[in-house]
């Protein structure tokens, strides 16, 4: 034991403590609780036995360095001042300098003396147990125990007071030295000196006020602007001006109604809705709707510019938000309610992944909500014949969460499982979806202001009333309706959309057909035109995704076309040309060589024929062989029915339309085909693979997609029959069916080929005219049903095939057939009608 203790002396302190603790345990007689000193000494008694050590605690010996370091420091300081006195003074002697400095710098010597006394105290404590115990237990220990009797709050107050007194004493001491007086004189002089110093203090305060004032003024100016207030008489827009958005208008009207008559809902224990989010594609009239609200309501309407909260300095955004809501509260109290409208609310940003949490990401949060809200109607229509441009949107139908009746028939656990999967997916999608901005606290300030209106406000209310012992008055009811509009709802912060802030989210989608008709009529009324109501109706059907902005643009483009032709009246042809330009862009100025022109026309004709013969609920909008970008030609379709789900047979038709180009090329070119069918085959394969693995359009029932997502059992299906083989078999089956359709319509294929070669671009009505043998707006389809047409066309085609083989090098001139002046057949085309029209949902272009 002895040996252990002594060795422990040389160990580092922690080891010593450990040894000591071990030594103390069996003794059961810990050192007095007066302080750390006694307890640290148990290990030090190297000669006595353990109980004796514990009975006679002593201070732990300091190392030499710890003993002398302050003495050395103070000695060095004193030597330095003495040396400084001698240095540079040729008359000064060291002994005089020592004497002089012992007076001038006596504080160093005093400190030195105190340190010597302290070291003596320590030294004695290390050797004389009674002395050590006296100090640690009787003196310091007693003080400590007395202090412990006080509660924590009193101890804190005492220590705070002591610190203040010490600080003031130090300041007084410094002041006395600076003013060359004694401390007591200085103390007496302090009030008088303070009084004398008031002018200087005031100057300094004024200076500081000026400096701070600059910033205050600057920030005040910066925090202004970007916010305009309108009163009902300022705005002429009315709800009646918002066309084709009746359901949204009625919902918004409902909210405005509650704002104007709050008692209707508040008397029944409810509250006025706090916020509306209008979201949807650009140009669908969100801002117009807000304007209409401003025009219809009897309350002030505050319009916040999209960039209002973007500021050069961090913090200005917060000031702006606070200033805005101060204004809103004022207006709300004065007029009984106020509407504030944030246009392009996505500029408010989101806190992005910081908002995290499970399934989190803002984008994910907002997106998940929006996903659940958005009707999948516009997505379900599958792609037409091999379109490269819009396919992405069409494949929405393959999303796993798209159940026919939702998931309400499932158990809670099953729903949770599916929900978890969706959340995981959306997290990945939405992770990067958070908009920029919002990190300077603007968004947070906005969130706080929107839901933090219940606090008592005002200095008088909070401080003075409380000082008088009264409770602060609760704040009055501020009726503020927050409206936001955005076309990027996924960029909004999730917290913004929670009930209590933005209670209601309305999708402002594409206008309804009636709305589009009304919009077309409205804009056409401003120009001269000769369109019939039927044609306008058809126009509305052909433009399912037209918005007010695009309709206005189309009418204007038609006018440009008319003026270019030297006319002042817009004709149906002008409108069609304008639509092609606006919908599909301008064609490249590219001339196909004759042989290629024929094959491309044939390729597109096959698409068009199969589409015309097989498709239901969709009509051909346009067929063209003019090159646009990298696309040699395409057949575009318009959905004329607003439906949610596709049938298996419809998917098969889509695939057949896609495959038609390959089938046609092989059929007409002796089994050869171009690589231009690649896009079509890709489309067909993706469609088949997706629906085969999720919608049981093949021989199996399992949702292969789900299995892949769950990362289980991909082989279980392939064990029976490789998936690729299933896809190929299905494609082969549809290929044969398409072959049948094209064989039965050989004349129509050649007719459409001829029309496309002749006119480059033909409308859906022309296609219909050619197929049915009637007169279209551009093409007279009756000529293609003449008895000699097939002979001429076959002869022309066989020459093309011979040339393809390389037997000929000069293609016969394209036979002149079926040319009809559009003007002479305008009436006929009008009477030919628009085909099956009703609601609209989607529109696609398919390239060949």
């Amino acid at each position, binding site marked *: 034991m002895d*040996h252990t203790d*002594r*060795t422990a*002396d*040389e160990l580092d302190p922690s080891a010593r403590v450990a040894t000591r603790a071990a030594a103390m345990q069996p003794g059961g007689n810990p050192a007095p609780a007066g302080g750390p000193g006694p307890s640290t000494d148990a290990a030090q008694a*190297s000669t006595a036995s353990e109980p004796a050590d514990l009975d006679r605690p002593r201070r732990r*010996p*300091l*190392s*030499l360095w710890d*003993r*002398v370091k302050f*003495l*050395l420091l103070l*000695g060095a300081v*004193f030597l330095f001042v003495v040396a400084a006195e001698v240095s*540079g*003074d*040729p*008359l*000064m*002697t060291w*002994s*005089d300098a*020592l*004497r*002089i*400095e*012992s007076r001038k710098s006596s504080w160093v*010597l005093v400190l*030195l*003396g105190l340190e*010597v006394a302290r*070291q*003596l105290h320590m*030294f004695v404590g290390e050797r004389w147990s009674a002395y050590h115990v006296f100090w640690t237990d009787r003196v310091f220990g007693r003080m400590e125990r007395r202090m412990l009797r006080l509660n924590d709050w009193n101890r804190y107050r005492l220590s705070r007071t002591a610190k203040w007194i010490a600080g003031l004493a130090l300041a007084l001491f410094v002041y006395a030295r600076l003013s060359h007086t004694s401390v007591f004189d200085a103390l007496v002089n302090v009030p008088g000196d303070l009084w004398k110093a008031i002018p200087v203090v005031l100057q300094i305060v004024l200076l500081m006020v000026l400096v701070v004032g600059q910033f205050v003024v600057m920030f005040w100016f910066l925090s202004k602007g970007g916010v305009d207030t309108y009163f009902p008489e300022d705005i002429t827009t009315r709800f009646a001006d918002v066309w084709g958005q009746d359901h949204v208008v009625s919902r918004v009207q409902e909210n405005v109604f509650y704002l104007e008559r709050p008692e209707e809902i508040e008397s029944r224990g409810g509250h006025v809705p706090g916020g509306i989010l209008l979201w949807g594609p650009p140009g669908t009239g969100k801002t117009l709707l807000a304007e209409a609200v401003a025009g219809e309501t009897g309350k002030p309407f505050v319009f916040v510019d999209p960039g209002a909260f973007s500021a050069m300095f961090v913090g200005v955004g917060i000031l702006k938000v606070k200033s805005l809501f101060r204004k809103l509260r004022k207006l709300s109290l004065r007029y009984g309610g106020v509407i504030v409208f944030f246009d392009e609310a996505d500029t408010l940003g989101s806190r992005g992944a910081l908002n995290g949490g499970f399934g989190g990401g803002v984008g994910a949060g907002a997106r998940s909500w929006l996903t659940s809200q958005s009707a999948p109607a516009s997505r379900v229509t599958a792609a037409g014949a091999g379109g490269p441009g819009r396919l992405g949107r069409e494949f929405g139908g393959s999303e796993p969460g798209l159940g026919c009746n939702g998931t309400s028939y499932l158990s809670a656990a099953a729903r949770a499982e599916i929900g978890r999967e969706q959340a995981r997916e959306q997290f990945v999608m939405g992770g990067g979806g958070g908009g920029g901005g919002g990190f300077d606290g603007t968004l947070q300030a906005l969130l706080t202001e929107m839901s933090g209106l219940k606090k008592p406000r005002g200095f008088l209310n909070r401080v003075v009333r409380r000082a008088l012992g009264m409770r602060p008055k609760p704040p009055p009811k501020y009726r503020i309706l927050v409206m936001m509009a955005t076309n990027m709802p996924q960029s909004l912060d999730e917290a913004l959309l929670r009930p209590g802030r933005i209670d209601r989210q309305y999708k402002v989608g594409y206008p309804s057909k009636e709305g589009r008709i009304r919009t077309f009529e409205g804009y056409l009324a401003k120009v001269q035109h000769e369109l019939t109501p039927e044609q306008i109706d058809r126009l509305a059907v052909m433009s399912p995704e037209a918005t007010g902005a695009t309709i206005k643009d189309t009418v204007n483009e038609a006018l440009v076309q008319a003026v270019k032709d030297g006319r002042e009246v817009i004709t149906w042809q002008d409108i069609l040309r304008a639509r092609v330009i606006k919908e599909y862009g301008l064609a490249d100025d590219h001339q196909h060589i004759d042989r290629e022109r024929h094959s491309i026309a044939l390729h597109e004709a096959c698409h068009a024929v199969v589409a015309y013969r097989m498709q239901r609920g969709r009509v051909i909008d346009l067929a063209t062989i003019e090159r646009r970008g990298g696309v040699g030609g395409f057949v575009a379709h318009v959905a004329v029915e607003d439906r949610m789900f596709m049938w298996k047979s419809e998917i098969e038709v889509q695939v057949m339309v896609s495959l038609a180009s390959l089938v046609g090329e092989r059929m007409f070119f002796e089994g050869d085909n171009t690589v231009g069918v690649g896009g079509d085959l890709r489309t067909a394969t993706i469609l088949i693979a997706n629906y085969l693995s999720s919608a049981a359009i093949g021989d199996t029932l399992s949702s292969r997609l789900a299995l892949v997502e769950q990362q289980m059992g991909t082989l279980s299906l392939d064990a029976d029959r490789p998936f690729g083989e299933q896809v190929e078999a299905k494609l082969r089956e549809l290929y044969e069916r398409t072959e049948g359709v094209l064989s039965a319509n050989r004349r129509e294929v050649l007719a459409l080929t001829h029309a496309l070669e002749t006119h480059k671009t033909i409308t859906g009505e022309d296609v219909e005219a050619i197929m049915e043998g009637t007169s279209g707006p551009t093409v007279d389809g009756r000529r293609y049903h003449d008895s000699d047409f097939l002979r001429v066309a076959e002869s022309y085609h066989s020459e093309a095939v011979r040339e393809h083989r390389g037997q000929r090098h000069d293609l016969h001139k394209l036979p002149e057939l079926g040319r009809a002046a559009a003007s002479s057949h305008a009436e006929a085309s009008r009477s030919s009608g628009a085909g099956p029209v009703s609601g609209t949902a989607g529109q696609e272009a398919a390239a060949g």
Partner: protein
Amino acid sequence: MEARRRTVSPRRKSLSGTLLVLTVATVLLSVGGCGSPSYRYVTNKKDGVFLRVPNDWNHQEMPGPALFGIDARSVSPEMLQGLMSREWVVGIDAAARFDATQLLVPDALQPKGFVQVRHLLPEEANAVSTNSLRNLVVAVDDAEADQEKAVRENPYSARLTPNFLLLADSPVRDRDGVHGVHLVYQVRTDAGLVTIDQTSLLDTAQTVLYQLVLACSSLCYAQHGQQIGDVAKSFTIEPTDRGQ
């Protein structure tokens, strides 16, 4: 045993070290605390002026410049500031109590005087010469000429009761090109004979004037002449570049 040796030795070392340090500290304290310095030192390290006076003499820095020949009312605060920065004056008084008002009293019973550093204004610097240093306090040359004249006119009485008597006149040439004169002379005033010990020096560039003037009645000088001579001898100039 090995462990015992190892544990004991540091303690001894610590003990001896402590004792050593304590001893040193005690010696320092005792030396510092006891006794007083042999001299008092009047020092201006900025200008390089050093002076040693007996321990029982007092000295005190004089506030404000000596505005000789300048109308104080025409001095602007900035000018005063400038003048003050150019001038450093410390009054010296051998009396028990320093009395600034009595510094220039000619018949003092105890030596009094001042030490001065003056950064000359350009026009002063141009006018000053080693010769003119002699006449800074009293127009020594004129007084000497008057005395000679008086001796010629009335040899006996003028010699018995001289109005002016030049006791010492030696040129001073120190290190660093500091040069000037050291004069000791008696002047008769209304209050009696006054002995003045004047050391007036210029730096090499003749832009800084260093001057030590000590005066007291001739009787006093007879008693304290030795001390005054020591003080004048200790007057040391080590020019700095401040005045250049």
